[in-house]
């Protein structure tokens, strides 16, 4: 009888913990996106120079690599994730200040923001409702990220406009695939830490927004 009860209880407990991870992730993601937006506005208010973007991204990447793994299993991880997203938002403000000076800047920013929201919600909704396991995309997504990083490092020094556009398009597709993969990981118990899940999804949203902004900036407003 005891064994029978355990058999029923285990899947129920597993489903509960999956639901908890998903709920906590989306709550923390909403809070970090809001905080990031506030920091971007602060940065725009002070008209930060473009150099602030690179400094913030470098700082956030270092925090993500060295500090987050040590704190992700404690409450300090929440503070670290706010620090990372706040820095990225602050850096983003410097880029948005540049775009606002362009003829169609405000329209481009609004379109990129709305587009990013639609892409994220659409892909997350699809992954959550389709009940498919997209874990098979892991190899493709991570190998693609490695290729993109090599291309990004090369273009930091080469400044090739075509390569820059190709990187933006590639990053957009990879991050879209990553949203499917990460959401699926949360649903199937592959990702049990909501701080890591939030960090992953935030980075995907951030990269999609930056890439979309660049693509719209290049192609949009041709008059």
């Amino acid at each position: 009888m005891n064994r029978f009860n355990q058999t029923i209880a285990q899947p129920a407990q597993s489903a509960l913990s999956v639901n908890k991870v998903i709920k906590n992730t989306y709550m923390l993601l909403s809070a970090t996106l809001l905080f990031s937006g506030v920091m971007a506005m602060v940065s725009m208010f002070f008209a930060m120079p473009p150099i602030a973007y690179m400094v913030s991204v470098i700082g956030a990447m270092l925090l993500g690599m060295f500090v987050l793994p040590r704190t992700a299993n404690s409450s300090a991880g929440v503070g670290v994730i706010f620090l990372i997203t706040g820095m990225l938002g602050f850096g983003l403000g410097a880029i948005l200040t540049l775009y606002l000076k362009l003829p169609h800047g405000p329209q481009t920013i609004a379109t990129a923001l709305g587009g990013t929201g639609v892409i994220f919600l659409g892909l997350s909704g699809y992954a959550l409702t389709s009940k498919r396991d997209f874990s098979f995309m892991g190899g493709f997504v991570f190998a693609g990220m490695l290729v993109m990083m090599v291309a990004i490092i090369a273009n930091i020094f080469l400044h090739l406009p075509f390569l820059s556009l190709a990187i933006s398009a590639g990053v957009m597709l990879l991050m879209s695939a990553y949203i499917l993969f990460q959401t699926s990981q949360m649903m199937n118990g592959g990702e049990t830490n909501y701080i890591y899940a939030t960090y992953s999804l935030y980075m995907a949203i951030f990269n999609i927004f930056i890439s979309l902004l660049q693509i719209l900036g290049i192609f949009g407003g041709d008059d």
Partner: protein
Amino acid sequence: MDNIWLQIAMAVTIGMMLFFLFPRAMHWMKNGPKAEQGDWMAAVIPLLAVVAFVILLVMLV
């Protein structure tokens, strides 16, 4: 992007991230679950929708 030292710092940081990500990529490529019939199609359709949506946004701006 004019500051060469900042560019080097950015390249080094991304290089470090590459180093961090490499074992994870290798793990997923070797041990990740294999796609079953129809799995890739289910993934490609939303990605194509994203491409179409971006083209639409470019035409709107």
